[in-house]
């Protein structure tokens, strides 16, 4: 039972951290619990669907279906998170002012809830499908149902606990910096997902490795440890990254950051520039 709980814990942890970041980033948004909850349910249903389609997915694309599917899910999540951050850069200032004046309780339509909810669904779908496959396989091997359910419950509880702890830790950040912090966390999360997507494409032979192992920092921080797993999900840490994974991390991080800065600077410039009201006539 302990063995299965550890496996479930690891997969649930990754999804739980993403849920925590999304919940923190949407703090103050009305009904965001329903949005995120809905995203979770959709993710779980999707996970079951993906798990039972594993055979079909694996045989697609000359046996590379799994890698392509995983990469596609990861890239979609990156796009959702990127869109959220870029949108916040464009509208964040207005929102902050409005939130301060009317008190917390901004309507859900104001934020790209759909984008973040999708990111949650994609994360749960990806990690959850492995959990479903594993538990199903164990059940087929004759493991006692009670032990499996107990192990799974333990794993979910453990992963959830870490997520909750991180959420309340984040709440301690002063409101002034809070959304900046969540913005950075989403940026780092997206960069990590981008690196993982590149890893799957490299595994499929679609992208070149550039270097199969750019560095080995497993002596410093192993991905098998809890700290290593947290680092992996939160900032995309890999103990033995390939060159293409590092490249993808930098590219994802840099692209989103540049877009965020460009858009917010653009808006600030337009606000600062005085509007020329002089009427234009035929003779001038």
């Amino acid at each position, binding site marked *: 039972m302990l*063995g299965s709980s550890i*496996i479930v814990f690891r997969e649930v942890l990754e999804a739980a951290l993403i849920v925590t970041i999304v919940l923190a980033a949407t703090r103050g948004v009305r009904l965001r619990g329903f949005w995120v909850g809905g995203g979770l349910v959709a993710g779980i249903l999707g996970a079951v669907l993906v798990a039972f389609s*594993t*055979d079909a997915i*694996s*045989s697609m694309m000359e*046996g*590379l279906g*799994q*890698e392509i599917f995983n990469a596609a899910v990861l890239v979609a999540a990156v796009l959702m998170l990127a869109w959220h951050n870029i949108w916040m850069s464009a509208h964040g200032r207005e929102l902050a002012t409005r939130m301060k004046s009317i008190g917390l309780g901004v309507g859900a339509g104001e934020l790209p809830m759909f984008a973040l909810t999708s990111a949650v669904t994609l994360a749960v779908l990806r990690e959850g499908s*492995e959990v479903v*496959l*594993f538990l*199903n*396989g*164990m059940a*087929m*091997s004759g493991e006692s149902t009670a032990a499996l359910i107990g192990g799974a419950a333990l794993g979910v509880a453990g992963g959830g606990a870490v997520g909750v702890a991180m959420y309340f830790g984040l709440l301690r950040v002063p409101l002034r910096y809070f959304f900046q912090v969540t913005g950075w966390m989403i940026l780092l999360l997206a960069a990590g997902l981008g690196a993982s997507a590149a*890893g799957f494409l*490299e*595994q*499929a*032979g679609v992208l070149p490795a550039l270097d*199969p*192992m750019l560095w080995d920092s*497993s002596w410093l921080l*192993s*991905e*098998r440890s809890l700290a290593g797993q947290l680092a992996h999900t939160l900032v995309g840490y*890999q*103990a*033995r*990254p*390939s060159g293409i*994974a590092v490249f993808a991390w930098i590219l994802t991080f840099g692209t989103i950051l540049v877009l965020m800065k460009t858009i917010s600077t653009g808006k600030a410039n337009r606000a600062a520039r005085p509007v020329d009201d002089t009427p234009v006539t035929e003779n001038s």
Partner: protein
Amino acid sequence: MRHSSLLLAGALAILAIPAAADTPQFDLTIKDHRFEPETLVVPAGTKIKLSISNLDPTPEEFESHELNREKIVPGGKMAIVFIGPLEAGEYRYYGEFNQDTAQGRIVAE
């Protein structure tokens, strides 16, 4: 100058074709939640095609931090994983779903 751009396009096209034909293939089998052979010796410095056949009815996840690979092999099915080029050394892998028994290593030399 038109000839050189054609040549460049041709060279790029050739580079884009994966060299799967020349990649040496090695086979791993999963049976009773164990990998066979548990120690696999492969040549270093070249891309390798690993063919993993799962003879068990339940799925297994072939995973290796050292090789940076993870792939689910459904029960009764076969999966291909490309690894390398590897530097000489030992690389451990495991079956995530059955870690007490599914352990192995690839030795590149």
